[in-house]
């Protein structure tokens, strides 16, 4: 081959490599989604995963939300003071939290806690032949391992976000009442008066999507992980990074769609 064409060849094979990886990912996610919406369902596994993903994430999510709510109230107060708009603190805090920060913070925290956890667990099962063992025992890994994690994440993330919303608003309220001189009742009334159901719904829809991303990334990288402790570690890292990036990217896409459809 002429030397001149060499760069094109390299570029071509790189593009093909990326496309192949993308194809794998799409096929994998598609078939796990299919397993999640068709019987048979392993309800015991789903329940166990809901406790693990949902219940045990409550402390992290709650802590993150209270600090974010508090910091948000302070910053909006400082900014609002420049044009005498301090009274909007409660409204902006509740909108910021329900539409954006509640779901995003929960998504990012769980990209770390849950996605990496799933990838490490599944990866360890892959390299110790437990996934092969499942197959030989006629239990499809997609149905027995991955679909329950996906279902549990999609169901529990919105619940966690409701909790994060409430705690985040409470964080803002604490700061508002204790440091910014708001009257407690006025603060709460302003919070509720301008809040619409659609704000909460928008956040909940987002969080369901984030749940799917988090579970699928964990399962995908775990499933493909290479032998050895480094292989499993790499799977955990990759799943966390890609889950976090995809959460943020899909957050933008969904926000755009919601604006488009007036949600």
């Amino acid at each position, binding site marked *: 081959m002429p030397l001149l064409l060499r760069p094109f060849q390299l570029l071509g094979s790189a593009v093909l490599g990326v496309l192949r990886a993308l194809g794998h990912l799409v096929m994998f996610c598609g078939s796990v989604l299919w397993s999640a919406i068709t019987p048979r369902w*392993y309800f015991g596994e789903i329940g166990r995963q809901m406790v693990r993903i949902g219940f045990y994430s409550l402390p992290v999510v709650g802590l993150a939300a209270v600090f974010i709510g508090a910091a948000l109230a302070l910053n909006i107060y400082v900014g609002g003071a420049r044009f005498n708009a301090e009274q909007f603190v409660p409204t902006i805090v509740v909108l910021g939290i329900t539409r954006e920060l509640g779901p995003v913070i929960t998504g990012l925290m769980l990209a770390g806690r849950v996605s990496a956890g799933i990838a490490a667990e599944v990866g360890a*099962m892959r390299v*110790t*032949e*437990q996934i*092969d*063992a*499942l*197959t*030989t*025992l*006629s*239990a499809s890994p997609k149905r*027995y391992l991955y679909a329950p994690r996906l279902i549990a994440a999609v169901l529990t993330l919105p619940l966690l976000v409701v909790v994060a919303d409430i705690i985040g608003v409470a964080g803002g309220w604490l700061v508002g009442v204790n440091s910014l001189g708001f009257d407690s009742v006025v603060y709460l009334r302003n919070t509720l008066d301008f809040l619409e159901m659609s704000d909460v719904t928008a956040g909940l829809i987002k969080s369901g999507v984030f749940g799917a991303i988090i579970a699928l990334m964990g399962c995908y990288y775990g499933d493909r992980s290479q032998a050895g402790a480094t292989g499993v570690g790499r799977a955990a890292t990759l799943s966390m990074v890609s889950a976090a990036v995809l959460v943020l990217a899909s957050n933008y896409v969904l926000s755009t769609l919601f604006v488009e459809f007036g949600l």
Partner: protein
Amino acid sequence: MSVPILELKGVEKRFGGNQVLRGVDLDVASATSLVVIGGSGSGKSVMLKNALGLMIPDAGQILFDGQDVTRSQGKDRDRMRARIGMLFQSAALFDSLRVWENVAFRLVQVDRLRRKEAKARAIETLRKVRLGPDVADLYPAEISGGMQKRVGLARAIISQPELIFFDEPTTGLDPITADAINDLIVEQVEALGAATVSITHDMASARKIADEIAMLFEGKIIWRGAASDVDVSGNPYVEQFVQGLAEGPIQPGF
């Protein structure tokens, strides 16, 4: 001879540029025990995974009781898998489940037996591999490697399969425990009347388990014969392997 329970015809498998299997032909008759020997990295585990349907061969055919393993799907495949048992090299017990739940996994999850009944069957099967009922409620991480192998064996035999695969059943065990595992394998296989395909480096184990021995080298079966003939095979590769010599036609794999 009747239809072999397992038949591999011209099976080929490559990973990128690494051609691991180059046309493996092998058949196993019902209720006989075949041991496959071969050096590290010669593709023994890959051959087993192809035979189990865990990997798809690039070429060739794999028949279980006349049925194509790679083509079968759905209920057919589940029925076929129920007739096949497997003991993995690392035992591959599910570490989130208790010992008895591991042993009874198929009964509970696939056959949907009631837990109480399944547990009773698991304990009975554990007894066959000389493990007491006190082990049943432990987790795999709480028992030794030799015990894990026995639990793996119990899981492989609980559904009374017609064909069982053993991937290096004695590797990593002390000679006494290894011999006990060999005895259990022979005893349980006789009780079931199952055919077995075992992979091993361990000649002591091979002599004990095997009716027949086959040697895999450079992706092909280069010798096959009765276990009693392995010392007089007349094949320089087999002789070198059986005697464990570094000198000979096979170059050490490093």
